[in-house]
């Protein structure tokens, strides 16, 4: 009986200490210039933000940046429910609006743009060289799911080119995010997918078929400090860093375009 009791008490203490420390960090954090920053970011930003995080940590000793990547829509819901995000970087204005309503944002700025691109396996089994080729019967196309920015942008693009009716019957899967679309095409399971140009910058094993600017949709990426962040100043300097020249250089290396002017 006794050892069990000791263990139980130990567990209970651990839980209490954990609760206590997490609640205290909320007040103490903002006074400290260094510290831990949690950034929720669209999964298309993964490669660029990992690099920017490393650079930012090097420029601000004592700072740790932790990233949570995922679908912007999912992340927006998590920001409100979990309250652990200091910064939110979204692939769409819609997801940012969700966070702006609850819990609110400051220092919001558009920091990058992205375009859509068609991808195929390197051997291009279905012969896709233009947007129009996606209408060929039997082309197995994967898109991001509805409600996921990359999926919504792709649908918007098809719609604006009046291709929805012909292309949608070729869709074989609606994937949870752009990384999954790339994975399905890379594996040779699907004949084609629609993702962001930034998705294929670092991805060997897929072939990109560019969509002319006149037919394309421009995705604008907003970033902001989340209201209620325990590290407001640090979060604001991270936002500045991403939107600044160093951040922009890294983002452009990864295939992102400059933010919309004006």
């Amino acid at each position, binding site marked *: 009986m006794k050892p*069990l*009791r000791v263990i139980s*008490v130990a567990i*209970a203490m651990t839980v209490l200490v954990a609760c206590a420390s997490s609640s205290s960090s909320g007040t103490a954090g903002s006074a400290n210039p260094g510290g831990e920053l949690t950034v929720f970011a669209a999964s298309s930003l993964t490669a660029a933000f990992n690099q920017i995080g490393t650079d930012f940590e090097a420029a601000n000793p004592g700072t740790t940046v932790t990233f949570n990547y995922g*679908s912007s829509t999912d992340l927006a819901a998590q920001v409100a429910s979990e309250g652990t995000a200091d910064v939110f970087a979204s692939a769409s204005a819609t997801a940012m609006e969700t966070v702006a309503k609850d819990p609110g944002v400051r220092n919001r700025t558009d920091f990058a743009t992205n375009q859509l691109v068609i991808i195929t396996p390197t051997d291009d089994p279905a012969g896709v060289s233009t947007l129009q080729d996606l209408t060929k019967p039997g082309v197995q196309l994967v898109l991001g*799911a509805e409600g996921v920015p990359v999926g919504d942008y792709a649908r918007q693009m098809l719609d604006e080119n009046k291709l929805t009716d012909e292309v949608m019957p070729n*869709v074989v*899967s*609606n994937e949870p995010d752009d990384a999954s679309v790339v994975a399905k095409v890379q594996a040779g*399971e699907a004949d084609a997918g629609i993702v962001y140009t930034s998705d294929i910058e670092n991805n060997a094993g897929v072939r990109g078929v560019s969509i002319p600017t006149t037919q394309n949709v421009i995705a604008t990426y907003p970033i902001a400090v989340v209201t209620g962040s325990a590290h407001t100043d640090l979060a604001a300097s991270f936002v500045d860093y991403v939107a600044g020249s160093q951040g922009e250089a890294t983002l452009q290396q990864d295939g992102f375009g400059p933010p919309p002017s004006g």
Partner: protein
Amino acid sequence: MHRRLPPLSIVLGAIGAAFVALPVLGLALRAPWGRIVEILTGPGAGTALQLSLEVSLLATLCSVVFGVPLAWILARGTFRGRATLRALVILPLVLPPVVAGVGLLEALGRSGVVGSWLERIVGIQLTFHTAGAVVAATFVSIPLVVLSAEAGFRSLDPRFEHAAAVLGAKPGYTLRRVILPMVGPQLVAGAVLAWARALGEFGATITFAGNLEGRTQTVPLAVFQRLQTDREGAIALSLVLVAVSICVLVALRDRITGTG
């Protein structure tokens, strides 16, 4: 026998119970009860429910057809590597489903080890088709049939088989007319558990079979997708799976709770 329980264990136990009950309670409290019938009979939900039923029943059938003979081999066979074979068969039970999905892609996908051959020669593609969802669900549920059936076969006295053999029954006849009827309850329990597991399958399905309404989008995938756009719809569909799970527990209560 009624013993006094130490207060601390009551407290910790209560926390444990609350922890398990809370998510279900959360679903029930946040459910759009007023619209639930409307949501569940709506076009998307109805398609997912029907597809889930088809996929899970076919997966259960496959698990029984291949799993019961496998259990018989494991229970009665004497060959080297039997323990290894059993471990292999149980593996899907502990394997993360997404890993199962990746494995299925590499094996049975269009460019997979066997899948490329399947497509070239037989003209069958599993990925992005309902058959792929059935394969994924079968993969994760077959161990439950094997485990349950093997336990049943092992609890049988081999003298019944000997008696049948002495009386001139062929092995196949003995299996069908003597053994299977005696282990019926275990087989049913295994099949029901396999069905419940197949019904809830998510990771292997979305990784291997993809996510398309009416073809591979089963209820768990529909829940996942609706979370993006329609939280109430996701909760309503989740409740269907909760209800089914509770029914399975009730049906198997003696077998699972054990002490009764």
